[in-house]
């Protein structure tokens, strides 16, 4: 097993990786930008080192700085998490060139799948179904218009270096191509430093279903069943589940086999995901993510596999602990992403200081968070505060448990998407498993900022009593807080502060 690892990330995924490493006895080295000095991933690591100011380009994306910390802390491996440098082939290369183990696939694999047009070519060659579109970046609006005409509208413009919905635009009319292309290029440039954009046929109302893969250095590749992530807004996933409510066993098998073919085509090592769009019984390769996914916990809940543990085992040269027939699929799991966004104000990013954090508990509930009371939520990084995951014997139990858990989650001081998620857990189409990537657009009623469940009357009473108490009527007087633990030993024998030499009391 690896002796130590530098976790080149922040937030909940850094914490997730640190937890797995801790359990394996791997020494953990965290890095932090200036505003993250007191972040949970710093507190939970064995060691932590500063890597620069707030902008990611000068800290979490600074390859030389990260390698310098690895050298200084004598870390033997690097785990990239997701986002930041996780899918940057040059980073994987720099890590291995420095004599360290990169916890992830080879630079060559990352490069092949990171170039979305190249990936489409390789998948076609491997016999994996692909959505019709271009396999080269677009040179101009005119070329985009021609390519779109050939595949037929609607189309989607996508960043070649993309992922996570950044640099992506759906276009329904030829005349909207120039504006959309400009926006996509601009966003792609900003997000990935690469403005290449290509065009693909846009499938209306598809379902987003993806397969979790794992490969080892001994040539084994397995899949760990699928996840459904159809509930998205702006191509950002919001709710994920495993298994899909849609697939029957035959379809599940066909999709799993296609994913394994895709992985073998690029000699895949480590954790990866093949994303498919599914519509009317057909499925098409969308992209392959050569890293851990945000939503990996739902797979962990139904398979009882710790995917990050597997990443470390594979990176240590071990063979996969389980082969395909041995991987269970038990019950159903749901994940809700808890983000600092105001769902009733057009998903505006919200900032502030987390003044209170109360995490749900009890059976079948998991919280993967990256915040604590006192954490400042700014605008420099991803708005993901944490993930709430529930597991139950079937989808109904998992959903009811999620509803219960969302009700227990309290994050004070920062607006989150929690109330929207709670509504989704009661919405009839969701409950029936009638999903598509257009789900949120087709359910505008979920975004109506109406009266909370508590009811207006109760809120009016609360407001009146709060003001009444503030005016000295004492209704809401604070509980006395002392916080000093009690000791029977006032002093002397068993004294609280032992006197130093020459000092007596």
């Amino acid at each position, binding site marked *: 097993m690896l002796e130590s690892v530098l976790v080149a990330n922040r937030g909940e995924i850094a914490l997730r990786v640190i937890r797995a490493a801790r359990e394996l006895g791997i020494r953990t080295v965290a890095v932090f930008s200036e505003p993250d000095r007191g972040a949970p991933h710093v507190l939970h690591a064995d060691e932590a080192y500063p890597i620069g100011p707030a902008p990611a380009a000068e800290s979490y994306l600074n390859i030389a700085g990260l390698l310098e910390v690895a050298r200084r802390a004598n870390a033997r491996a690097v785990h990239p998490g997701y986002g930041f440098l996780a899918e940057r082939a040059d980073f994987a290369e720099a890590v291995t060139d420095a004599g360290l183990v990169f916890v992830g696939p080879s630079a060559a694999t990352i490069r092949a799948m990171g170039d979305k047009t190249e990936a489409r070519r390789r998948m076609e060659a491997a016999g994996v179904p692909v959505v019709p579109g271009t396999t080269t970046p677009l040179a101009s609006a005119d070329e985009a218009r021609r390519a779109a005409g050939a595949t037929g509208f609607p189309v989607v413009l996508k960043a070649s270096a993309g992922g996570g919905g950044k640099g992506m635009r759906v276009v329904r009319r030829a005349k909207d191509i120039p504006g959309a292309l400009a926006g996509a290029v601009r966003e792609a440039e900003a997000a990935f430093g690469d403005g290449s954009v290509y065009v693909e046929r846009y499938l209306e109302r598809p379902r987003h279903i993806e397969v979790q893969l794992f490969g080892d250095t001994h040539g084994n590749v397995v899949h760990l069943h699928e996840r459904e992530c159809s509930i998205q807004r702006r191509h950002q996933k919001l709710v994920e589940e495993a298994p899909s409510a849609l697939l029957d066993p035959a379809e599940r098998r066909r999709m799993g086999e296609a994913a394994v073919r895709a992985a073998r085509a690029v000699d895949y090592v480590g954790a990866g995901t093949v994303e498919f769009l599914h519509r009317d019984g057909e499925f098409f390769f969308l992209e392959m993510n050569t890293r851990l996914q945000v939503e990996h916990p739902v797979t962990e809940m139904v398979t009882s596999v710790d995917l990050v543990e597997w990443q470390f085992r594979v990176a240590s040269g071990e063979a996969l602990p389980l082969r395909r027939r041995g991987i269970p699929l038990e019950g159903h799991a749901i994940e809700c992403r808890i983000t600092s966004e105001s769902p009733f104000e057009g998903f505006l990013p919200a900032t502030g200081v987390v003044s209170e954090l109360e995490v749900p508990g009890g059976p079948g509930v998991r919280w993967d968070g990256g915040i604590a009371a006192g954490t400042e939520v700014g605008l420099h990084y991803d708005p993901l505060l944490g993930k709430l995951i529930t597991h139950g014997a079937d989808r109904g139990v998992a959903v009811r448990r999620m509803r219960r858990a969302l009700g227990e989650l309290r994050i004070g001081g920062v607006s989150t998407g929690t109330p929207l998620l709670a509504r989704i857990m009661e919405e009839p189409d969701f409950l029936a498993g009638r999903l598509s990537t257009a789900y949120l657009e087709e359910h505008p009623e979920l975004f109506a900022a109406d009266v909370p469940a508590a009811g207006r009357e109760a809120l009016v*009473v609360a407001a009146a009593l709060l003001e009444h108490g503030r005016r000295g009527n004492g209704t809401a007087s604070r509980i006395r807080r002392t916080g000093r633990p009690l000791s029977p030993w006032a002093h002397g024998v068993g004294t609280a502060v032992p006197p130093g030499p020459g000092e007596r009391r």
Partner: protein
Amino acid sequence: MSSPAKGPRRVARYVVSLLGERCEVEVGRDGRVAVEGREHEASLAAAGPPHGHSLLVDGSSFALLARRGHGGEWRLEVDGRTIPARVLDARRARVRELSAAAGGRAEVASLRAPMPGLVVGVAVDEGEVVEAGDTVLIVEAMKMENELRAPGAARVTRVLAAPGEAVEKGQVLVEFGEPETP
């Protein structure tokens, strides 16, 4: 003191504005609270973390966070929602209402930058009337473009930002007036 109480018991009277409505509330000394004459048995207690409170109304239990603002303003966080409320004592509320009726003037409504960022697009012109949900401006932050939308009908009176401009959090970007009074 000239008490405004009418009944035999001493009660405090408030006017609560919340979620677009205005209610008269009487708080008695015995845990009884009347909202527009509807009587409730209620109790509020500090509970849980710093701003946490437990509210019981006729037995029903609600957990909420409450933050105090200026002059009787409160922000209630409940069910993951933030609900602003204003509580005035009944007499002060009456004075306000009278002075408003005597010729209070509407203040200028404005759209402010919710975060530091880069303006990448302005979708409105001065004089234009917008409807609820119309995109007004696009600001890039955290590598995502954020559309700032109009939550209600209004006329754009001034546009104070231009594409390419870096804006600070809180900076006024657009000012609005009543839709029917340009």
